[in-house]
């Protein structure tokens, strides 16, 4: 008999109930839409169009960070066939970190870069991390299983 014990409740996978998960996502989406609408209404009378663009850019970066933060925590119920659990975990961690840094770069670019170049710089930073993430996953899955 194994001497290790588990808690009586099953905490093996997602402890967040799906309903609360969906509610939280909907609230987040509603918040983003409300802020975007408020920026649209406030510009240009109360807020310069440049500042409104910067705020919405920073906000989008924060949304990327918030979503990417949970990527390593989202465990799959079943691994794709032939995929090593260690490799799958490594992929999730890499993609999570990469996209969090991408989102951080996106927000920072919108915050600090000259306004005429902010969109291009932010987009390039995020695209680079996205390509890195996809590359890592493709490369990891093309290797033979050890």
């Amino acid at each position: 008999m194994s001497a290790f014990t588990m808690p009586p409740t099953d905490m093996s996978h997602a402890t967040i109930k799906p309903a609360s998960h969906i509610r939280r996502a909907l609230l987040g989406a509603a918040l983003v839409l409300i802020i975007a609408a408020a920026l649209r209404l406030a510009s240009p009378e109360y807020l310069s169009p440049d500042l409104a663009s910067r705020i919405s850019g920073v906000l989008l970066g924060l949304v990327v960070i918030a979503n990417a933060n949970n990527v390593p925590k989202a465990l799959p119920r079943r691994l794709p066939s032939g995929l090593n659990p260690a490799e799958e975990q490594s992929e999730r961690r890499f993609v999570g970190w990469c996209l969090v840094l991408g989102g951080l770069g996106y927000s920072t670019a919108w915050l600090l870069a000259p306004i005429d170049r902010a969109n291009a710089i932010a987009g390039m930073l995020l695209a680079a991390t996205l390509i890195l993430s996809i590359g890592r996953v493709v490369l990891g899955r093309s290797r033979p299983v050890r």
Partner: protein
Amino acid sequence: MSSVFRALSDPTRRRVLQLLRTSPMTAGELADHFAVSKPTMSAHFNVLLAADLIAADKVGRTITYRLKLSVLEEALLEFAQAFGLTVTEDSAGAPDTETPPNDR
């Protein structure tokens, strides 16, 4: 969030998380790295499970633990490892389990 801080405040639990970063491991494989009793290790695993930092899959008698850290929690783990993180019993809200004198 306090459960996460409490879980990360113990060096044994931090070491468990570091070991799981390389790959998922069974309870026995993890326990082999520590000079503590199995019930003590179980208590550590349960604290980590309660904080949602690891996930457990039980197949037959074997329990396999997998890492379940968000990016922020992993950064916090690194911070705790580098600078030390201590949570007192009062602020943790529950008594801590036995901490081994030598966990490496």
